[in-house]
């Protein structure tokens, strides 16, 4: 199915359900999809299209789709002077690692994809890695940010976004440096779910390096009420509050803080602040919130598929109605990594199993400039196969817009510090 047939037509519903039920559970295994006559590259996307991580899952999918559209509009991926279009296949991991593994197996075995684009969550990514290893299919992960993914030294997986243990702390140090009068104390909240907890730990460890005193480090259950923890932190009155979580708990942190009339001098949160839905849900109350981003439309990078970062942002805006965040950008850049590697490899579709191993080696040698920034994968250490090149930017929501406020060379506006009282 092509990327632009996401609409759900009634006819498709009827025909597919007829096939599904007529073929039946036993008949299905023997139905094989015929290869299209014109050779194309096949890419499989595993991500969360349902369950608790749907927002991020859909961001991820949008990013990967943007690349497929852009490259197909240019005629396809170039190999040895010929152009080959890209077909996208999707698997929902239902926000569940086991289903993610099923999806990977299906995309590889049934759809015979040449490359996988990785899940939104790190948990799914960890569960999918052994499947990639088994079938020797390379995977490019445009979203996974957990350091745990790379500690396992996955041979076939490559990450575009620097792991959060490298970015959260750095951004906090930037914030502390910009604060005037200089911030001294910090309270850290981590939502107790895989990625958010690691983000909280990143803030906590970064705080110590930045010379901030950690007055509280609280892990909160994902479905718990936030009033007790906010009250407790309000009583300690820290200069900075840092929160690791996804957009829903982050929105609740801001609402709860306001309803308890608690306003720290600075509030920094990750991840979800950079997604426009955050500012939309909170309206004026979102203003002043800081976040971490490894990419913004204002960065000075470009490539020949998307053009400049600004041009990429406009293309994404046209499609989804709002400005893209760094996850969407990194996912789109994942496609560029594939395009570059397969071009260097010089193998036309259909890729053989040996070609895919060679493709993995080619991806490992990636050293390119894209609209997203430089991409080059680590060859050893705790961030094996992760792209740690991008420098995190401290952003702040000002007047409903995400603007870069630090470090100085990237800043487009001044940091608002201390934050004004709630209106």
């Amino acid at each position: 199915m092509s990327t632009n047939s996401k609409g759900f037509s009634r006819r498709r519903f009827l025909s597919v359900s007829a096939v599904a039920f007529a073929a039946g559970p036993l008949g299905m295994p023997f139905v094989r999809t015929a290869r299209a006559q014109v050779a194309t590259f096949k890419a499989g996307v595993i991500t969360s299209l349902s369950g608790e991580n749907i927002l991020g899952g859909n961001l991820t999918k949008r990013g990967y789709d943007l690349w497929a559209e852009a490259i197909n509009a240019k005629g396809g991926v170039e190999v040895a002077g010929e152009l080959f279009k890209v077909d996208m296949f999707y698997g929902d991991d239902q926000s569940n690692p086991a289903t993610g593994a099923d999806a990977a197996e299906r995309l590889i075995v049934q759809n015979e994809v040449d490359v996988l684009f990785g899940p939104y969550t790190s948990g799914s990514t960890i569960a999918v890695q052994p499947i990639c290893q088994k079938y020797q299919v390379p995977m490019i992960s445009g979203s996974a940010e957990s350091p745990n993914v790379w500690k396992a030294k996955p041979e076939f997986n490559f990450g575009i976004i620097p792991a959060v243990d490298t970015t959260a702390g750095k951004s906090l140090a930037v914030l502390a440096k910009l604060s005037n009068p200089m911030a001294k104390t910090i309270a850290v909240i981590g939502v107790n779910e895989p990625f958010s907890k690691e983000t909280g730990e990143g803030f906590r460890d970064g705080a110590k390096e930045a010379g901030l005193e950690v007055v509280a480090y609280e892990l909160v259950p994902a479905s718990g009420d936030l009033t007790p923890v906010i009250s407790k932190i309000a009583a300690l009155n820290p200069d900075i509050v840092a929160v690791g979580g996804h957009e829903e708990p982050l929105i609740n942190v801001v609402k709860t803080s306001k309803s308890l009339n608690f306003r720290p001098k600075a509030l920094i949160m990750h991840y979800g602040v950079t997604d426009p839905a955050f500012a939309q849900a909170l309206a004026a109350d979102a203003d002043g919130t800081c976040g971490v981003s490894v990419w913004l439309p204002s960065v000075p990078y470009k490539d020949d598929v998307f053009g400049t970062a600004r041009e990429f942002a406009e293309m994404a805006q046209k499609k989804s109605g709002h400005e893209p965040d760094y996850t969407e950008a990194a996912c789109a850049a994942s496609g560029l990594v594939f395009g570059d590697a397969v071009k260097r490899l010089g193998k036309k579709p259909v890729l053989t199993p040996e070609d895919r191993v060679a493709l993995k080696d080619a991806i490992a040698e990636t050293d390119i400039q894209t609209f997203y920034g430089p991409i080059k994968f680590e060859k050893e250490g705790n961030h094996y196969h992760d792209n740690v090149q991008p420098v995190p930017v401290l952003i702040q929501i000002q007047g409903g817009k995400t603007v870069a406020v630090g470090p100085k060379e990237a800043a487009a506006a001044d940091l608002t510090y201390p934050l004004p009282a709630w209106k």
Partner: protein
Amino acid sequence: MKPRWTGLLLLIAVIVVLALLPMLVNNFWLRIATGALMWAGLACSWNILGGYAGYINFGHSAFFGLGAYVTALLMGDKLAWPFFATLPAGIVVTALFAIIIGAPTLRLRGAYFAIATWAFAEVLIQFASVMDFTGGIGGIGLPPFLDERFFYFAMFGAAALTYLITWALFERSRFGLKVKALRDHEPAAEAMGINTSLVKLQTFVLSAVTASVFGAIFAYWVTFINPNSVFGGDITDQMVVMVLLGGLGSLWGPALGGVALFVVNRIIWMYWGDTAFYIAILGAAIVLVVLFLPNGIAGLFSRRGAKSGAVLDKAVGNLAGDGQGGPS
């Protein structure tokens, strides 16, 4: 005698097909078959307590998760036990938990038992999320073993054993009669000299232990577990719905319901995996089955379906727990 012969032939045919399946289908469908066998086994495991003893366990995932965690912890870097050595350990740990939890909770009736078991499963989720030795919320990885056939036959073996034990104990022995007696009228069963507390506890432990074996294989198969992926309430929800769809308290109902729901879910997911609409389709399918197939899929095939329903209809135990909610 004729129906029995056809039944036996059908059973042999199913076993032969299942044994030969790895040669007939590709790895993806083998993986789906592995999942289907696991769910058929888990549904049967839930049905042991829910269907035969009439106790609705909303926290059955607790035992699935215990099996998974014991295997994952023992196979980790520090201990590095071989997989098969972890199975008896998981069984012992789960049985101990089941006795400690079951003895007091089995005094509860209906919905109170259901919610108490759910609370227990939630306690385990929170516990595993907070503790360090369980890997916390980040979960634990297991050494990957990438032989799809091994896991297929492991699940096949576990499922076959579960059904064999269930058949022998609940369809062919005095023990089964005792359990059904206490389900249909607990005071009467007690008056007849049945030690109902003991029989209930034995049934509960059996139900828990079978679930833990599937959890152990699942952890090794998926190579990564975290608290929500093995203790999560949605795992229990699926078991309950599978049993109801298949036919409560029958031997083959859970197998039919488990396989049907899992495979239909996966087929819908394959074709509409790029939108969330398949969730709505799944919901509608469950509603339609409840409205039009109230005795489950098994009820379609057996003439006894309707009759045994009428007998059960008079059962005292209902979710209200006070004996007034049931129709008469």
